[in-house]
């Protein structure tokens, strides 16, 4: 079973240094809590690129297609002539295509974001602290029990304001 060690930092560079050290020593899986997105962490953690854009692309394309389809199919399903125009006129139907592209594309983007950000989540997981939405940076190391000591040592060394272990 895994346990973890949490360090709360005031200063960002301290937190970053700690993270880099932890990664170097492969102490365990690191989660960073930060009140505002900072690139420093991204550079330190080197995470994979977000796949949200794929959702966007697929959603947008299907929306565009559906937009044309619904308009043309509906017109043809009961062909009535208005103003001497063609029964299904693709030029103005581009508007429906566009609007539905935006609508479905946008919503599927949000879906992608939720899925990959693992929200909505029902419980506050261990390791989170309200301070992390105020002014503190949190570093949560999840590791095997025998490595807890190292983790704590590293966090303290880099000047964590508080270090706490958790089940």
């Amino acid at each position: 079973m895994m346990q973890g060690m949490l360090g709360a930092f005031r200063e960002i560079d301290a937190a970053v240094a700690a993270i880099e050290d932890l990664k170097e020593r492969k102490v365990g899986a690191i989660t960073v809590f930060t009140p505002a997105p900072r690139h420093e962490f991204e550079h330190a953690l080197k995470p994979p690129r977000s796949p949200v854009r794929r959702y966007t692309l697929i959603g947008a394309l299907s929306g565009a297609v559906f937009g044309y389809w619904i308009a043309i199919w509906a017109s043809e399903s009961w062909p009535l002539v208005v103003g001497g125009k063609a029964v299904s006129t693709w030029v103005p139907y581009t508007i429906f295509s566009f609007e539905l592209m935006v609508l479905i594309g946008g919503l599927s983007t949000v879906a992608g974001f939720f899925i990959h950000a693992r929200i909505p989540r029902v419980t506050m997981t261990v390791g989170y602290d309200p301070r992390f939405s105020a002014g503190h940076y949190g570093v949560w190391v999840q590791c095997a029990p025998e490595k807890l000591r190292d983790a704590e040592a590293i966090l303290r060394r880099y000047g964590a304001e508080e270090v706490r272990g958790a089940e």
Partner: protein
Amino acid sequence: MATLAPPSPHDAPHRPNIAAAGQPLPAIRDYEQVDREILATLRPTKGWFALLLVAVACLGLGIAAWMYQIQQGLGVAGYNPPVMWGVYIITFVFWIGIGHAGTLISAILFLFRAGFRTTIYRCAEAMTVFAVMTAGLFPILHLGRPWKFFWLVPYPNWRFIWPQFKSPLVWDVFAISTYLTISATFLFIGLIPDIATLRDRERNPVKKRILSALSFGWRNSEREWRHFARAYLFLAAFSTPLVLSVHSVVSFDFAMSLVPGWHTTIFAPYFVAGAIFSGMGMVFTIIIPIRKFFRLEHYVTLNVMDAGAKLTLFTSLVVGCAYLVEFFIAWYGAVPVEQDYFWNRLFGQWWWAAWIMLTCNMILPLSLFSQRLRRNPAWLWILSLFINLGMWFERFVIIVPGLSHEYEPWQWSGYIPTWVDYSILLGSFGWFFMWFLLFIKNLPVVAITEVKEIVPPKVRAGHRHGGGH
């Protein structure tokens, strides 16, 4: 209204307006200050309750008028055939226009990385959502049979009766519902981290529960932030063309018809520019009092005002240019009906409306060439009121004179709104401000996390700042 203001956190007066290159908000020292000051604005005050009461009263009047209109028939409004569209459609276009500035600031300026948007975008975005919510009501309440409005929506039915997809009004249905959905989503996604912040500061357990639910259990983890940034970017990327399309589609309501003065290819860009112009007006109308009474001068700095004013000036120039082009084309096109119409608009029956429009939208905004005025909140606020008025009249001048002076001279007419029109117009403002007032006391009007992004973080080298220990 002093009661609105929380006790200022700093005894020393702020120096909000000197922005160093790397430091747009010099008066803000650390993250805690941001939390403290923004959260302080959420405390309800007497003045706020008073305003809310006024808004709800106006809304009530509007609802009463609408019920009367439904019972009696549209005849109680001031329609004077062939002027078959009046105050309701004018107000519809007006509110849709208002919405656009919000999306412009939150999305387009985001893509352009325009720094000054940070502290005002939340306000503008909320304004967008509420404005579109307001606008959406008007196409329904101007119907002869409003209870049948859903016939414009292609809902599945066994008789296979569908809307007529060639009609600009159906385009509207799609454009506006999309616009409302996307901008609401955009607003809410941006709010999630801030709601998380509120949640963490909240002591009342019930409220804490609600905020936890609204924040989707957001916990500021780096993974969340990563996907958040991505999603936010794409939503912005979608909203940008959406802004341009929605008002173009609205302008098609007019451009697609053959009413003289409506049937013009310039309408799409003309309407979009006008929309952003009117939106900026409304942003100023709203943000300046908030800035003052919420003591946020050091967030919404004069630099922000200045930049916003420049944008307003630019759009005003575009709109003015569009007016002149309209007149030129009417003369150059040599279609007598068109020429009659423009003459009648400017110097005939409707001269007063036309000149209100030209004064408010073309002439007064020229004052923004002066930097002193651009940095003078009082003037900006007064001007913004004129812009709102002017833009309402722009739509009046487009819709009413066109219809009242068409091809068939025998059917030329005038138009005088009745108390029902005015009550419903007032009601729409009540509706809009009701939502807005509820918003500003329950959710942060300034995006907390985005402000934190541009506040320099603490570094260890900074022990002398007197950090924790």
